[in-house]
């Protein structure tokens, strides 16, 4: 099973195995290239000895022999190198949290806790909206009350105005003067009847 070393890749921006592979390839490619160079140099040198009876094939076999030995030895060395690099250099110790993940240490919220927090925030939003609309309704009623109150006060003033007119014309208590007025007019009617009778 491949250990993707994902946390390391998150930190390095590449996976450690790739880095190790790059190092491996660096060794392998240059070893290979150098062997080809050595072989071509030897072949060129042999041109100066035409009677040496050494064929390119023979030289090729020598090259392959030396390269095989070096490659095999290198692979042995490299397996240790790979272990050291992956376990000590390109690894992130289990107790280490990367800076971008610090929030998970400060707020270790489980899915349920997070859901509960979200629910509570939604409940607060709902309550706030309810309070806000209640506030609007109350303000609206206050405005309405101002108008109604003004109307009612106007009516009261009207009554007060009425009463002050009466007072201005000497009738302090309207009811009494009205009664007095009624009695007076009754008397006047009686007197009138009298006069009428006498005239007849």
């Amino acid at each position, binding site marked *: 099973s491949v250990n993707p070393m994902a946390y390391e890749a998150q930190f390095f921006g590449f996976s450690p195995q790739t880095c190790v592979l790059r190092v491996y390839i660096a060794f392998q490619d240059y070893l290979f290239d150098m062997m080809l*160079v050595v072989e071509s140099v030897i072949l060129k040198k042999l041109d100066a000895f035409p009677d040496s009876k050494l064929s390119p094939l023979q030289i090729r076999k020598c090259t392959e022999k030396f390269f095989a030995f070096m490659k095999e030895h290198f692979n042995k060395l490299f397996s240790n190198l790979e272990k050291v690099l992956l376990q000590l250099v390109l690894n992130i110790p289990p107790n280490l949290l990367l800076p971008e993940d610090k929030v998970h240490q400060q707020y270790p*919220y489980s899915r349920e806790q997070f859901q509960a927090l979200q629910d509570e925030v939604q409940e607060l939003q709902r309550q706030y909206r309810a309070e806000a609309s209640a506030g609007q309704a109350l303000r609206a009623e206050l405005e309405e009350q101002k108008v109604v109150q003004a109307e009612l006060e106007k009516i009261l003033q009207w009554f007060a105005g009425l009463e002050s007119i009466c007072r201005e014309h000497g009738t302090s208590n309207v009811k009494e003067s009205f009664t007095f007025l009624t009695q007076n007019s009754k008397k006047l009617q009686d007197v009138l009847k009298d006069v009428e009778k006498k005239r007849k």
Partner: protein
Amino acid sequence: SRGQLFDTVVNTVLEKLVAAGSYERFASCYRCFYKLQPEMTRSIYEEFIFQLQASIKEEIQEVKKEGKLELLFDSLDKLVEEAKEQQEPAWRPSGTPEEDASSAMVPYLLKHQSYLRRVLKEKEKDNKQLAEAVLAGRGRIKELQQQIQARREAWE
């Protein structure tokens, strides 16, 4: 440090590789040429070893530069140093992105929650005063209506 360890282990492998590929080994593989030209074999070998080491070292430097390894190793060493006190295994991505992303939002959600709590409290306080004013207003209106009622009855 990680940087030094990286250089050390790579250089060690290179040294061991060169040690394994000794001149004796080289001469024995190229015996036919060695018999013909021993000095030349020697100088070819030395040039081979020199070039091999130089080009591998150069390539490793290239790998380090490309991956910004020095910088990364230093900052990782610092992070390891800082985390020394931490014993338990630290958090790791759960593999469920929305879960990991949402808990990254927790501090902001908590801030939002306390903001909402504060403004809700203010709003409730406002509304309490408003409600008292409305009740007072209703009482006032009732009183005015009663006064008007009384006046009207008197006139009636």
